[in-house]
């Protein structure tokens, strides 16, 4: 007679979960590498339109972002018309001048004319606002722009 009971034969052995942490860590690292922390806190709805003739933005070039769209739920008191957002603040088209100047102040001299303005605009915005933004950018001689879009079929927009 033994002190310990012999294991009963038969029946499924429990599945080992020892490798579960490894799997989860792998996923974790994937997400850490593949994503970037949001640079700006968006205060507007920002559903980008889709297009299929897109080009990747060169990360080596300086990029400034201009957002536009309808104020989101939390900022309902700002109205329902599409607004511009620059660096965590709602802005008027006339504020773009100062924005471009401050973005340019952060750049090295040889990068000054390489600045790309990425326009992240909500699908429901009106072209009037975009036209105003473009006009301001032309005045500031910031002519390289990029309409940021998702990859997808443009005709179904």
């Amino acid at each position: 007679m033994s002190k310990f009971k012999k294991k009963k034969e038969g029946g499924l052995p429990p599945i080992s979960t020892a490798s579960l942490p490894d799997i989860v860590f792998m996923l974790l690292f994937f997400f850490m590498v593949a994503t970037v922390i949001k640079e700006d806190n968006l205060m507007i709805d920002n559903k980008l339109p889709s297009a299929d003739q897109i080009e990747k933005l060169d990360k080596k070039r300086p990029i400034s972002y201009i957002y536009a769209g309808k104020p989101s739920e939390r900022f309902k008191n700002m109205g329902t018309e599409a607004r511009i957002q620059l660096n965590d603040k709602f802005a008027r088209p006339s504020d773009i001048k100062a924005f471009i100047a401050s973005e340019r102040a952060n750049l090295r001299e040889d990068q000054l004319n390489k600045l790309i303005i990425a326009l992240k605009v909500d699908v429901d915005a009106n072209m009037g606002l975009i036209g105003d933004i473009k006009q301001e950018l032309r005045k500031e001689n910031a002519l390289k722009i990029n309409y940021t879009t998702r990859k997808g079929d443009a005709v179904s927009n």
Partner: protein
Amino acid sequence: MAKRSAPEVNAGSMADIAFLLLIFFLVTTDIATDSGLNRKLPPIQDKEVEPPLIKKRNIFVLNVNRKNQLLMTRAGEEKRVELKDLRKEVVAFLDNGGGTGEDACKYCEGAKKTESSDNFSKAVISLSNDRLTKYETYISVQNEIIAAYNEIRNRVFKRLFPKSGLNYVESNNRYQDPQTNPSEKEKLKEKLEEVKKIVPQVFSEADTKKA
């Protein structure tokens, strides 16, 4: 007394910790969408410069109204056009190649109608929109125009450099890929520039109309 070995650390909660971190990253991040349609704005002219004279047959006028409907004026004929047909129409216009003599178009494969464009570099696309046009529609229109140019550039690229096994868009992507080595980039750039010279994007945008 027997030597006691150090007790093993219980790693059972490791998975929980990792899950917590994973969920944190899932929630706080979004996959970067740093791609889009590159465009160049025209610089502001100091003085009133006389606009260059362009023959009517070389202009493709596209109007987008506040109801997001498209009207095209080509070769003196006005016509409503659906978004899905726009690419075809633009290609037909650019590719027409009606020019003769000096303006003859070597790479055009179009209908060669006399009332449509002479050659690629003469053909101008002019886009105007209303202040109430939706951004969505505008991007779709821009996309279709770029697509039409890319279609023609692809064809010209293949005809000029049949051995490369790439088309214009693929070469451009390779050129912009930071992993491509510099000597290949140099070669690609030459080819791309040559195609761009044959098929330039001549694009004019009217100021947005006041509502």
